[in-house]
């Protein structure tokens, strides 16, 4: 049985179309939804999680319709794309209440909250969530999605705005969850993020599905795509020259003392190197912003083919 089955699914927001006759099947494992901003990923995620009701077409998640369906909700974990949480709550209190909403007893809530916090590496954090960094907020969002031992985890842009160490760490967590038999649907506008994680990938644009298949097949189609990244760092010049020395990048452009633009054909090695640069060489990296125009060029190529 497919985890998700969508048939001619459409969703309109007034006069704007979010999803346009979208048809797809998602199987077990990790499925990546990739597309530029406005492609319809978040609309699809919201439909899958039952936040919004579908327009035309048919949608089944784990064989059930998702809108306002608590039976299905008890089997899925949803991690939204935004950072808003109950900022005044401490993580354990937040998870405790979320577990209560899953219908768990008090003792069970406590145990699962503590376990989920430890899964995401936040055990012992006892300050209000509002004081957390972006990466910690992402982790707490994943933790709350795990409280009900979900069969399906729905993650909307979980890597947005996090530094390379947290990014790598979140990927490990998601991979580990998948190995334990949890199916994952994950959205991103960065093909590379999905490439590292997903078994299957679904390319979306303008509310439609462009291409779907095993990640290897998709990457083969677009094998020579380059990957552009803006790196905000404490020392753009040093990091730029180190990346060049290592042969990890084709183009380096130091745009300011704290901003570096690079283009690479081997993002795997680059992403592996960056956490090392942080830990071993003391170069602070504040933010990585992959440029989605690469994705646009891939789409153009795909559509061209």
């Amino acid at each position: 049985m497919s985890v998700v089955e969508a048939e001619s699914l459409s969703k309109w927001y007034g006069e704007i179309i979010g999803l346009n006759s979208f048809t797809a099947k998602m199987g077990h494992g990790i499925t990546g939804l990739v597309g530029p901003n406005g492609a319809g990923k978040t609309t699809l995620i919201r439909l899958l999680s039952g936040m919004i009701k579908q327009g035309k077409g048919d949608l089944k998640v784990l064989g059930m319709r998702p809108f306002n369906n608590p039976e299905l909700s008890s089997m899925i974990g949803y991690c939204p794309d935004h950072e808003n949480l109950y900022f005044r709550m401490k993580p354990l209190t937040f998870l405790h209440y979320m577990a209560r909403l899953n219908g768990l007893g008090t003792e069970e809530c406590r145990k699962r909250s503590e376990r989920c916090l430890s899964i995401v590496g936040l055990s012992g954090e006892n300050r209000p969530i509002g004081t957390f960094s972006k990466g910690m907020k992402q982790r707490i969002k994943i933790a709350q999605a795990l409280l009900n031992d979900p069969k399906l985890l729905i993650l909307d842009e979980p890597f947005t705005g996090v530094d390379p160490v947290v990014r790598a760490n979140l990927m490990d967590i998601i991979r580990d969850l998948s190995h334990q038999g949890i199916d994952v649907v994950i959205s991103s506008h960065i093909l590379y993020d999905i490439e590292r994680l997903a078994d299957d990938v679904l390319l979306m644009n303008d509310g439609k599905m462009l291409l779907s298949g095993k990640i290897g097949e998709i990457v083969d189609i677009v094998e020579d795509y380059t990957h552009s990244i803006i790196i905000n760092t404490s020392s753009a010049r040093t990091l730029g020259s180190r990346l060049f020395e290592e042969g990890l990048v084709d183009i380096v452009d130091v745009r300011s003392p704290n901003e570096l633009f690079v283009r690479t054909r081997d993002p795997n090695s680059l992403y592996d190197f960056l956490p090392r640069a942080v830990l071993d060489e003391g170069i602070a990296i504040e933010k990585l912003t992959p440029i989605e125009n690469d994705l646009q060029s891939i789409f153009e190529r795909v559509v061209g083919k």
Partner: protein
Amino acid sequence: MSGGLSATWGMMQLTLWQMTRSRKFLAMVIVTCAPMLIVVYALSRPEMNEPYLFFNELTNILYIQLMLLLVTLINSTSLIRDEISAKTIGFLVTRSISRGEVALSRYLAHIAVNFFLVALPVALSYTYIGLVEGGLSSNLDILGPYLLMILAGVFAYGAFFYLLGILVRHPLMIGLLFAFLWELVLSNMPGRIPYITIMFYIRSLGAEMITSGSIARYDSISGILALGVLSALTLVLLMLSRRSFSGKDLI
């Protein structure tokens, strides 16, 4: 499988946590309790001959006609609307609890807070008067009806403002118009015009049971009928809230 009673109870606890663990709640307690200073001052005056009549008037004018409206306007409109604005609603409706249960449990939990905010200063004022002037137990026929009026008021106004908060993105303006133009102005008009306000039925409840003060002089209908109207109105508004929230796209 739905989370059942445990999830509903959890939602009520969460709502209570959210409503009471904030500086705004503290500010509201201060605002609603501040008029108690007037009671303390009034009792210190030698010309205060009828303290329970004073309590009667104070509660009617200040708590029934103003605080009740203010507290429910602020708290009830924000109950769901703030979750939608802050986007945290996604954490609530993707759990083992139906949207209908979310709507009802949040409403019920907030009733307790609203009742506490309005009834606490009334009960404390009464107790203070009783302790200073005596007659604590012999004037319960004034306190009791007022507490009932406050309870009926938080249910009915709560349901109205709750629905408003679900339906309208910025409920403040309609809420203020309703509270201060519709309710306060129309309920004091002559003839049958007050019949179209909630305040009329709340007052009718009091007028049936309290024999002294201005509350007894209002035009009214029988208390049972008023209670019936308020209950029916609350139920209808609540059903509409539940229905509206259950079918809402939460973006």
